[in-house]
């Protein structure tokens, strides 16, 4: 059977993420209680897996690393149609950069067993690095295609996919097993169905801590991360704003006048 692993991330709800600020005095983050949601682009990854499940009779494993609350997003993916879920959760995994995250996920994938395809969103809304997919592929010693926006051909071993480029695309031929990171253009994710939620209640999520995963503390979390945040700084606004007031008509008139005087329209 064709086996797919979908790697997903619980991220601070983008609608509220702006509430997380740097406190200028303490140089720490002001609040961390923003609710966690499934990273937007991971929904496209999940949708690809679900489409392949229909076409190829595939089996979908959902994998995440995060705090216990991240179990909810794994559950959500099971409700969307995933077959089994795994959550890698341990205090020791905390503070991981992309390198340590990719390493931990790769170890999780190795422990889960054989796979044909790994998919994840091209980036997370909180980190936006795009590193985890390719670094995971490097650790698993398999090829990766990032920014996949079209599956052109699904052969037995060799697939053809398009990946987005500045003003264009590259057509890639790739031998499975491989990692794909996907863009929003790839597909339109379906919403949760009531029956899916009911079915997901019976599906188990396996949680592994550092001992169950069988990795050394030095290789994961902050200790396993080559990079660290050395400083947090606030930035002062660079311009003095002139607020234009009045009725809509007056404001529009004044703005046009000022821009005309500045010679920019």
């Amino acid at each position, binding site marked *: 059977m064709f086996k797919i692993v979908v790697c997903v991330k619980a991220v601070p709800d*983008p609608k509220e993420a*702006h509430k997380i*600020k740097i406190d*200028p005095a303490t140089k720490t*983050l002001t609040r961390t209680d923003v609710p966690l949601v499934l990273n937007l682009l991971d929904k496209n990854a999940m949708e690809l897996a679900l489409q392949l499940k229909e076409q190829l009779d595939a089996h979908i494993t959902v994998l995440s690393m995060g705090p216990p609350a991240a179990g909810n997003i794994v559950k959500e993916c099971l409700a969307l149609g995933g077959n089994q879920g795994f959550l890698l959760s341990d205090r020791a995994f905390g503070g991981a950069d992309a390198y340590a995250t990719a390493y931990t996920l790769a170890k999780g994938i190795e422990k889960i067993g054989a796979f044909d395809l790994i998919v994840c969103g091209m*980036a997370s*809304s909180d980190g*936006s*690095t*795009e*590193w985890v997919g*390719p*670094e995971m*592929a*490097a*650790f698993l010693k398999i*090829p*990766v295609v*990032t*920014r996949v926006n079209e599956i052109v051909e699904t052969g037995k071993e060799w697939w053809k996919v398009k*990946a987005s*480029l*500045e003003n264009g*695309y*590259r*057509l*890639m*031929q*790739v031998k499975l097993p*491989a990692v794909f990171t996907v863009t*929003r*253009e790839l597909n339109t994710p379906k919403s949760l169905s009531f029956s899916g939620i009911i079915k997901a209640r019976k599906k188990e999520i396996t949680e592994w801590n550092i001992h169950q995963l069988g990795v050394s503390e030095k290789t994961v979390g902050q200790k396993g991360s*080559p*990079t*660290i945040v*050395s*400083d*947090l*700084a*606030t*930035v002062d*606004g*660079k*311009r*003095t*704003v*002139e*607020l*234009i007031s009045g009725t*809509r*008509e007056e*404001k*529009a*008139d004044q*703005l*046009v006048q000022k*821009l005309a005087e*500045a010679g*920019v*329209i």
Partner: protein
Amino acid sequence: MENQLGPVWVIAEQIDCRILPVSFQLVGQARILADRLKTSVETVLLGDQMDAQIHQLFAAGADRVYLGNAPELTYYQPEIYTEMIVRLAKAHRPEIMLIGSTSVGTELAPLVAARLHTGLTAHCIDLVLDDKKILEQKIPAYGGMISIICPEKRPQMATIASGVFPQPDLDENRTGEIVPLEIPAEIPHRIQTLEIVREEPDGIPLESAPIVVAGGAGAGDPEGWKIIADLSETLNAALGSTRPAVDEGWIELESMIGQSGKMVSPELYIGVGLSGELQHMVGIAGAKVMVAINNDAKAPIFEQVDYGIVDDCREFVPVLIEKIKEYQEKLVTC
């Protein structure tokens, strides 16, 4: 004698055998860093028929160019490119490695970083050396700026967008050493770039447009977005966006301005329905005149522009469009 630090590296990128502007910008910045570190600037260039352009890398500040020049290297080939750079880095131990955050650079950089077991910072908007000569890699986050360092592992790797650093002055008298590279024999060949297709972008390119109108989540829905697009069209401007607008699917990723998108410096910037997150604002810091239209008077954008209008953009922008048209008609009749 003090131990000589490893060189500062730039992985140059070419499209259709032309070196990208970002590669020269990074060579310029590498020169500044290397002078402080008392070390050299080295560039890796993989492509085909690249000979004619190498002197430009020297003119921009490179001391040495590692050159892979073969038809197989015309397109970015993930396995071959990664393998060549990894081997070279293991042999020459660069202190710093800079890569443009293009689509290709954004895939290649993490492949190289993971193989070298080192850190990599995405979309830096500044690179400075601290007292201990460690590279502070600045990125905007959480309404401020954070510094990321890679204290122990080498090279210290970062990706940087085009436009973050200026085009360096070219010194045509500078020369350097060219070191030819062989393509390694034992490549697994499990992935291949078959074709690269470039399409002419629609509309006015963001990077060269005198006027940029950018929209954000405040558009609310596709109809709201259309209003912002109409404003852009009225002004014959390029239409830009923030990450949330792209995530909503209102506009293509190519339109995104900021840290992980494009850096632009138009004569006039109008930000509509966007809060002014630093990730976006760093991309338009060079604009001459800046305007914000947002219904939230407390939005950070009102501290970063010249003119502010606190109003619902969906109501205000249509009125503004009418006034601009009136002004434009007057200009024509004068």
